[in-house]
C-alpha cells in the first residue's frame, strides 16, 4: 500500500511540476502576445500558437505520469 502511495506522489510530482513550468513559460509569452494583439488584432492566430508552444511540456509531464502509473500497475 505504501508503495502505491509513493507511485501516486511520483506521478503527481511529474505532472504538477511540468504544469508549473509550462504555466511560467506561457505567462511571459501570453503577456507579450496580448500586447501585440492590442496593436494588431489579426495577430491572434500567431499569438495563440506562440502562447501554447510551452504546453508541450505539460503533455510530456502527463505522459511521464502515465508511464509511472502504468509501470506500477
Amino acid at each position: 500500500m505504501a508503495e502505491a502511495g509513493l507511485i501516486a506522489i511520483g506521478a503527481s510530482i511529474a505532472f504538477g511540476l511540468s504544469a508549473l513550468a509550462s504555466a511560467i513559460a506561457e505567462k511571459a509569452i501570453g503577456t507579450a502576445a496580448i500586447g501585440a494583439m492590442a496593436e494588431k488584432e489579426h495577430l491572434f492566430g500567431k499569438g495563440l500558437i506562440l502562447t501554447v508552444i510551452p504546453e508541450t511540456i505539460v503533455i510530456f509531464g502527463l505522459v511521464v505520469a502515465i508511464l509511472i502509473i502504468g509501470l506500477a500497475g
Partner: protein
Amino acid sequence: MIRTEKMSHVVMIAPKTAQKEIISKLYELGVYHIDPYKKSEQQQSMQHRQPGVEIGRPLKEGEQLASAIVKLRALLTTLDIQRDQNEQECNSIKIDNATIKKEHKINRGDFSELIKKLDQLYAKVLNLLEDKKEKREQIREAGEKIKLITIVKHLHLTKDLLRESQYLEHFIGSLEKGEACKRELAGISSRIECMITKSDEPGRDLAVVYFEKKSNKQQEIAEVLNKHGFNERDLKPILDETGKGKPQHIDQFIHTLHNKMSTLTRQLHQTQMELNMIKREHSHFLLKFEELLEKETAKAEVPLQFGETQRSIIMNGWIPTQKMERVKHDLNAITDHKIHIQDQEDGKNAPIKFTNPAIVKPYEFFLHLYELPNYKELDPTWLMFITFPLFFGIMLGDVGYGLVTLALFSILRLKMPQFKALLNIMIFSSLITILFGFGFGEYFGFEHVSAETGEVWCEKIGLCLPVHEVEMRGAGGGAEIERIADFPRLLNRAHGYIDIGGMHLLSVLVIAFLIGVVHLNFALLIGFINVWRNHDLTHALLEKASWMIIQLGTVLLVLSYGKIPIGEYGIYPLTGYIVLITGIVMLYKGEGVQGIVELPSIFSNMLSYVRLGAVGLASVGLAVVVNEKLTLPYFEKGGWFIALGIFALVVGHVINIALGVIGPFLHSLRLHYVEFFSKFYKGGGVLYSPFGQKQKE
C-alpha cells in the same frame, strides 16, 4: 474545393478618353482585383529627366462627390438617421438606384441635380439648426431675466434707489449665508441698512447694503462681505428695461417676458417639427444617395491605383480565369476595341478566392484568424471541416453537455447573426460531441445508474440497461461489489485500459496518440504534394518523405529492442538504424541544420495529441466529482439538503460546460495551427477583393 479559384494576371492599357467607361464597366462586373501601381525606385530617381508612368489621378468629379458625401454624412448624423433602422423600410418600399435616377431625371454619371438638391437640403437643415440654437439661447436669457426681476421686485428696488447720491453708498451682490452676514454688519454700525433675499443662484443670497459715505466704514463692510464670498451684481440694465422699476411696470415686464418665452417655445417646437419632417421625408433619399455617392466616389478615386502616362492608363490586377472571356468581351465592346488586355496565368502573388461549398465555408474563419494560404497551396479549410469538430467531439464527448451546447449555440446564432460562421462551426461540433457521448456512454458525467433505477426505467419507459457487478474501491482501500445498470458504450473513457509492452495504459490516450500519428502523416502527405507541385519530386522526397522514413526507422527500432516480431520474423536493430539514418540524412539534405534541430518535434507533436484524451478525462473527472462527491451526499441527507444538492449540481455542471467549451475549442484549434499546419502550411496569401459591387456569396 481543395484548390482556391484559378486566377489570371491581367494587365490592361487603354486611352484616357475611355477611362470613365472602363471604370464603370469594371465596377459593374465586380471581378477585378486591382494591384495598386507602384513606382519603382529607379523610376523615381529618374523622374525629372524622363517623364514615365505616373500614379494616376482621381476623376475630375471626385472632389465634388467627396464634398457632397461629407455634407450627406453630416446630415445623416445631425438628423440621426440610422441605416439598419431604415433598411427594412427601404426594402419594403423598394426604392432602388434606378427609381432615384428616374425620379430625379439624372443621366449617366451626372449627379449635379442630386447634389443641388442635397445642397439645398443641407442649407435648410443648417438654417433650422441655427434657428433652433438661437431660440434656445433666447429662452434661456428670458428665463434668467424673469428670475432676476422677481428678486428686484421682492426687494422693492427702484432705479432711483440705485442712483449715485451725495450721502449714501451701496453694495449689491450675491453672497453665502446672508443672515449671518447681516448680523455681522449690524455689529459694525447700526447705521448700515442690509436687505437679504434669496438669489437666483442656488445656495446663495442676494444682499443690498446701504451705508453713509461719510462714515468711512466702506473698508470694513467690504471685508465682511468678501468673507462671505461676495459677488457684485449690476442690476441697472434690468431696471432700465422695466422703465422706472415701479411695481406695476415690473409686473408688466414679467408678463411680457412670459409671453415671449411661450412664443419662443412654440417656435422652437415648430422648428423641431420641421426637422423631424425633413428626416421623415428625406431619410430614404439620403440613405440611398449615400450608397450611390459611395459607389461613385469609389469609382472616381480608383485611378489612384492605376498608372498613367500622358494619354493612357495602365491597370494591373487579377481576374478569375473562368470570368476572363466575359470581361474581355465586355471591355472591348464598350471601348470599341481600343483597349489592350494581356492576361497570363501567373500564380505567384495571385489573391485567394475560396471555392468551398456552403457547409465548409464557415471554417474559413479559422484561416482568417491565422493566415490565408498562398495561391499555390492547397486550401486546408476542408481538412479543418473534418477534423476540428471531430477533435472537439472526442474531447468533450458527453451527450448531456452536447445537447446543452447545441441549444446554447443555436440560441446565440439567432441572437448574434454577426458571429454566424463561428457559431455554425460550434453547432456542428456539438452534434459530433453528442455522437461521441453515445460512443463513450456518458450523460452529464453519469456512466451508470444504480441497478434499482435501471429496473424502474425498464418498467416505466422500456429503457432496459444491462446490469453489471463492479468492484468499487472505497476511500479506505477496501473493495466492495456493487450492482449497477451501465449505459451501453463502445469505449469507457475513464476506466478503459489496454496493456501495451507490459504497461497498463488508458486506452483513450493510446487512441489519441494514434490519431496524432495518422493526422500528422496526412499533413506530411499534403506537404509532400505542395512541395512537389511548387518545386519538384526530389525536394518533396527530401523535405517531407524523410519525416515518414524517420518514423518508420524509429518504429523498427522499437520493435527490434522490444523483441516484438512482425509475423514470424524478428527484426535486427541494424535494419532500424539504417532506415533511421537514411531518413535523417535525407532531412539534412532537404531542410539543412534546421531540420536536424527539429528532429524531436515530430514525436513531441504526436505526443501532443494525447491531449485529445487527457482534456476529455479532466472533463469526465470534474463531472463525476460534481455528481458523486458533491451532489449525492446532499441528496442522501434529504429534506432541505436536496435544494442545496440541486444548486451544487447546476453550478458544477455550468462550470464544467464552460470549461468544456473553451478547453476543447482552444486545444482543437491549437492542434491544427501548431502541429498540423507546421507540416505543410506556409500561408501569406492575400484575400481576393474585387473592385466594385459586393458579390452575393
